[in-house]
């Protein structure tokens, strides 16, 4: 008996997710174990007595073979238990629930800025190829690619926060607004709207806009160049010439014909950019004291807090997989051939 196509597709998708996650966990687990950092020393410090060291060593299960340790870990993950952070003794899932919304909020605003500005800029650069608009788009993208984000972030802070005072400083909100609105979603802008607290909303927006603009700029650089390249390919196609010969308006030629055909490729580019932002931009998070998942995983990695690292890795891996699935679904919406 053959399976119905939808069931087969779902089974294949789930199987591929499981294999990918298993591989991801295995690699991260092994890297964590071969790193030149002793997780026991990270917890007890170098001054601890040998008996203290030994007790923690056993507590962490490090006396067991690697494969057994990995097996225990997989079993816990299946039950959605990432364990407790070795260093701060909190459940890793709680920590991730605290830091991931901060990254989600920042990345979503960042990618929105990147799309809203990057796509039209790329289209315009393709349509006016070689013109001053194209040159400006090229310079904007080049600067975006080549400027260290650390430097650009600090300069942005200095100018817009330090000198002009237009935006809020490092952190998600000012000191007066910490914990003022109840955390429902963990996204402060959304929580402020739900609480109808516009003062908090304004303050949170003034804090997020600069790092989001920075991330948006980097996405814009990539998205605009890719859009330009896709559009140039379409604009040189015969069907575009035919449309023009038929007397169709330039607007319709560009947006209804050429642009319509690059949507699938663009979705891939945007999904990848978004996934990169959702991983957490460590340097941006450091400069803006943004408690996101990027700096969480990095700090955990440097401190040999493997439960936290593996928990963070699972989340980031899931994001990539979910965005891939979402992209696949959108392909089917925009391109009948993919159905």
């Amino acid at each position: 008996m053959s399976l119905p196509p939808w069931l087969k597709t779902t089974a294949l998708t789930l199987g591929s997710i499981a294999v990918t996650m298993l591989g991801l966990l295995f690699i991260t687990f092994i890297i964590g174990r071969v790193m030149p950092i002793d997780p026991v020393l990270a917890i007890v410090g170098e001054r601890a007595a040998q008996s203290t060291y030994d007790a923690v060593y056993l507590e962490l299960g490090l006396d067991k073979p690697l494969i057994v340790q990995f097996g225990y870990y997989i079993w816990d993950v299946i039950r959605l238990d990432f364990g407790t952070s070795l260093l701060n003794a909190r459940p890793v899932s709680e920590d991730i629930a605290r830091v991931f919304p901060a990254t989600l909020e920042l990345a979503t605003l960042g990618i929105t800025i990147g799309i809203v500005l990057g796509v039209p800029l790329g289209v315009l650069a393709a349509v006016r190829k070689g013109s001053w608009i194209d040159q400006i788009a090229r310079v904007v993208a080049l600067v975006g690619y080549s400027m260290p984000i650390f430097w650009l972030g600090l300069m942005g802070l200095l100018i817009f926060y330090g000198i002009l005072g237009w935006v809020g400083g490092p952190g998600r909100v000012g000191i007066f607004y910490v914990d003022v609105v109840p955390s429902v979603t963990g996204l402060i802008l959304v929580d402020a709207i739900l609480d109808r607290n516009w003062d908090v909303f304004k303050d949170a927006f003034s804090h997020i806009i600069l790092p989001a603009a920075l991330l948006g700029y980097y996405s814009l650089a990539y998205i605009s160049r890719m859009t330009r390249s896709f559009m140039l390919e379409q604009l040189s196609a015969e069907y575009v010439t035919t449309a023009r010969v038929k007397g169709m308006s330039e607007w319709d030629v560009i947006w209804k014909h050429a642009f319509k055909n690059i949507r699938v490729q663009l979705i891939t580019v945007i999904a990848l950019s978004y996934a990169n932002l959702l991983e957490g931009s460590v340097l941006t998070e450091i400069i803006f004291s943004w408690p996101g998942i990027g700096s969480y995983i990095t700090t955990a990695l440097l401190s040999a807090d493997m439960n936290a690292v593996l928990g963070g890795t699972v989340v980031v891996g899931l994001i990539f997989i979910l965005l891939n699935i979402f992209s696949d679904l959108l392909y089917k919406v925009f391109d009948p051939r993919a159905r």
Partner: protein
Amino acid sequence: MNAINRLLTSAAVGFALSVSTVTAFAETPANMLVIAHRIDDVTTIDPAESFEFAGSDISRNVYSRLVNLDPMDLGAGYKPDLAESWEVSEDGKTITFTMRDGVTFHSGNPVTAEDAAFSLQRAVILNKTPAFILTQFGFTPENATETIKADGNKLMITTDKKYATSFVLNCLTATIGAVVDKATVMANEVDGDMGNTWLKTNSAGSGPYKLDSWKPNESVTLSSNPDYYGGAPAMERVIVRHVLESASQRLLLERGDIDIARNLNPEDIAGASGADGVTIADELKGRLMYLALNQKHPELSKPEVRQAFKYLIDYEGMRDSFLKGQYTIHQNFLPATYLGASDENPFSYNIEKAKELLAAAGIENLEVEIGVREAQERIEIGQSFQNAAAQAGIKVNITVGTAKQILARYRARELDVYLGAWGPDYPDPQTNAGTFAYNPDNSDAANATGLLAWRNSWDTGGLTEKVDAAVTEGDRDARVQMYLDIQAEFRETSPFVVMFQQIEQSALRDNVTNWSTGQAVTSAAYWQVTK
């Protein structure tokens, strides 16, 4: 981003900051203290377990102890806190504390001798990292309830032998001496953990501040305890925000969004010192930077060679260049501000003198390996020493590695020379004397990895006995003299080249007064701060 890029970026931003004017738009409220600090080292706030700097800051403000150090007069040493007074038995082994009446925990429960006994017993029984501060007096998990006892409003602690009272009381001012609320802690006990899991992230103290929240790598929020027996602090709320980047801390300070920036790099300190409304406060901390020569090495064990190395350090050159403002010259194992500290610094950079000493020892073509952990300032010190040694005919090969790699070899007595840092564990001279100058069994089998003298295979030649004598000396002045004598001998004979002592520079808004990071002996205190 690598260290050089990071440095260049900092320099660029520092330059940009210096040529631009950051306007102070905001000011924190008069009853609130906002501090930018790196708090990513806080792993637990249970005082029986906490052993990191930022964690100790929390404990110091949330918990009272039997005896404590006054942040406005640290030089005076311990003073009564929850213990109003104490008496020492004739044999010098039992100290009886009389508890202060009328003090309550944040929970409203009264502070009793039973709570104090429980707190010390608990720290010994849990046997976490800082437990050695108490167990060195002979307390063990097995005898804790016998040697630490409460009776009415009296607490009796009995040590295994007679120790200097100042030694015991100094140790009780450490974080592990914090008195916790037994009823609250035990109400949160899980699987016989004496409330350890709960207390890692919660508090049960009676100090001037209550812990409102600790969000790892994000913030610590404290509110004043209106019922604090010493009077409610002026700062009703203290917020410590985790700000990793020095330039970000400086911007926040100059804009007036914070009151204190605790982690500015030398460039930002120099820049901020010229900013309107900002002052810089220097305090000596306990960290020492030193070189140690392995005495298993046939050449390094010669007295003249040990001396020669002490003349191969460009103390002033380093202090005035890449260590500027961050370290001061210090050549003794007790940090300045410690009981018994010496300010004698007899060695100076003198290549000719070093050559003479090496010649007298018959040294030619000496080649040694120096192990350095991958920290910028240590690598630079290593390079400076390498250059100086080359002029004296010694080839120095620098091995840079992670803490795990280098420390493992140092602890295994495998390195020729180790360049490292050491910070005291508790505010008594024994903390450093007992590791730099103490080594009762120099054999490999002793495996006394906790003792720096052992790690360098150094038979201290009589200093071990002198250190033993100093911890039992009851007279404070006599004890001070003993440590001065020990250090004088140590400077001349030891294989340790102690070079620098750390300075912590805080940048403050100029309306902040009475700020104290605790110098070398303790942690930061907030309750005496006013604005």
